[in-house]
């Protein structure tokens, strides 16, 4: 069972929910993996340190055109849908712009002069670490400045494999990195906060998750800080409210220092146990 913890807006508490949930599940003896899919800004390792087992590098193929062999027919330029080929036939100049390349293979396919070869470019790393009694933490970490982390995310999820419980700590947004994560989940937990920003972004992420046809529920973090609009909206849309986490300076402090409230405070341990039970129940029924 794969559960994605996601939100449109950044900083609503995705990593907070996934790390605490993972901790509680580990304590209960679940066969479970936490995969940090926020490859642009992976933060799980700031809170949970496992024992590194394996590191794999993730590559993309980037084509290189040999101008000596190139017939300057322009077919690769026509086939590229990403404007990634700079083509100036009158100057006998042709070049691939690696940052714009999506690794679709169209140019290599169409080139009849044998001028295109593909070379690997490193996009990031996927680390696997052992934690507790058989649990694991997987982290996808993109190199800074890499255009798309999606291949790193895909690899991290594959590494997480099929377990009793796989938690995917998702990247923010509603576009490709978010989709690469959420599309592989059986159930989605959207984390939001009771502010106008939080509600607006929840509406967008709920629309995205619905488009993907995934069942989902909502966790309201920092409850008590804003207003009640978010609850009204959830009720109106009949979206299950899975949990409310009150705004609490003490917890903000524990977490800011890299601690997990579930590990040090009974009330939070119970809170996340309840959330875990709810998620498991939603996925059985």
């Amino acid at each position, binding site marked *: 069972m794969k559960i994605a913890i996601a939100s449109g807006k950044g900083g609503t508490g995705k990593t907070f929910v996934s790390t605490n949930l993972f901790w509680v599940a580990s304590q209960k003896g679940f066969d479970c993996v936490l995969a940090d899919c926020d490859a642009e*800004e992976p933060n799980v390792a700031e809170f949970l340190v496992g024992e590194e087992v394996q590191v794999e590098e993730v590559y993309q193929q980037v084509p290189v055109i040999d101008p000596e062999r190139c017939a300057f027919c322009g077919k690769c330029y026509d086939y590229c849908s990403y404007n990634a080929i700079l083509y100036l036939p009158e100057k006998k100049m042709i070049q691939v712009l690696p940052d714009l390349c999506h690794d679709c293979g169209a140019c290599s396919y169409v080139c009849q002069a044998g001028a295109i070869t593909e070379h690997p470019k490193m996009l990031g790393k996927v680390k696997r670490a052992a934690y507790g009694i058989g649990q694991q933490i997987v982290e996808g970490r993109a190199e800074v400045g890499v255009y798309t982390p999606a291949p790193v995310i895909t690899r991290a999820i594959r590494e997480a494999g099929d377990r009793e419980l796989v938690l995917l700590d998702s990247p923010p947004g509603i576009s490709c990195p978010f989709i690469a994560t959420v599309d592989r989940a059986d159930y989605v937990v959207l984390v939001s906060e009771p502010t106008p920003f939080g509600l607006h972004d929840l509406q967008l992420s709920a629309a995205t998750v619905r488009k993907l046809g995934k069942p989902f529920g909502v966790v309201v973090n920092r409850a008590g800080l804003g207003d009640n609009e978010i609850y009204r909206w959830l009720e109106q849309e009949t979206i299950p409210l899975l949990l409310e986490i009150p705004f609490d300076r003490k917890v903000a402090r524990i977490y800011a220092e890299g601690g997990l409230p579930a590990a040090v405070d009974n009330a939070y341990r119970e809170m996340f146990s309840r959330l875990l039970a709810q998620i498991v129940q939603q996925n059985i029924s």
Partner: protein
Amino acid sequence: MRQIVIISGKGGTGKTSLSAALATMGERLMVADCDVDAANLHLLLEPTDHSRHPFPTGAKALIDQQRCTQCGACMDLCRFDAIRYQEDHYTISETSCDGCYLCMRICPADAISMIESNGSYWKTGTFRNGWMVHAQLEPGEENSGKLVNVVRKQSLQLSEQMGVETILIDGPPGTGCPAISAMSGANLAVLVTEPSRSGFHDLKRIKQLADGFDIPSVVVINKYDLNEQVTTEIESWCRSERLSLIGKIPFEPAVVEAMLQCQSVVEWAPRSAAADEITAIHRQIFQS
């Protein structure tokens, strides 16, 4: 033209709240909301939009089952695993399709067409202190980096037309293509962080990105009093990096209250400690 980008790596550090405050302190300012995945600045600035333009985010392949001869050539060539063979026919997974057009071009039966998606848009308008360009990506669409680029370019063009000298860019989270698009061309990056392990970690990564583009950067620590110990660590890191720390904003309920009133904190609570600090930040950014 001066372009100032407010950016953070980590989400939720207060980029938009700070952007809104800075935007409502100046006059004849151009504001570009470059977080097209989760655009929020318009909720506080409430612009009157003058134009709305659709933005094509790319295309998705579609297989005509009547024409398909089931040769499988498209599936062999697709590098995005977007073509699946299910229940005796080939189908396209819309979410995996990257819109590269290769399958359409090579299909010997001419059975594949591409459907353009244009539910995304960008808008230009005016707000109480100047002009604004903002956008919204259609949920689930790709190419948010390209849309960020359009917002930036349009804000530049509109600034030239209107004789505006400063563009304030509210950036997206992350370090990938939307963040890169938002930063390129900026004269100054204001890195907004918060005193948490994750905020600090992401600050280092976004600094690396700014350095890669040779953009000078300054740091603001938001909600600094939520953890003074991490704040001290960030301060000493800034010193060792020779980064100037231009402000420390305290955590105050007034910031959220302002948001509920659709105002910036300097408008709603001009005498609050947060507004005071932002006034000092504004001075350092705009008078340097």
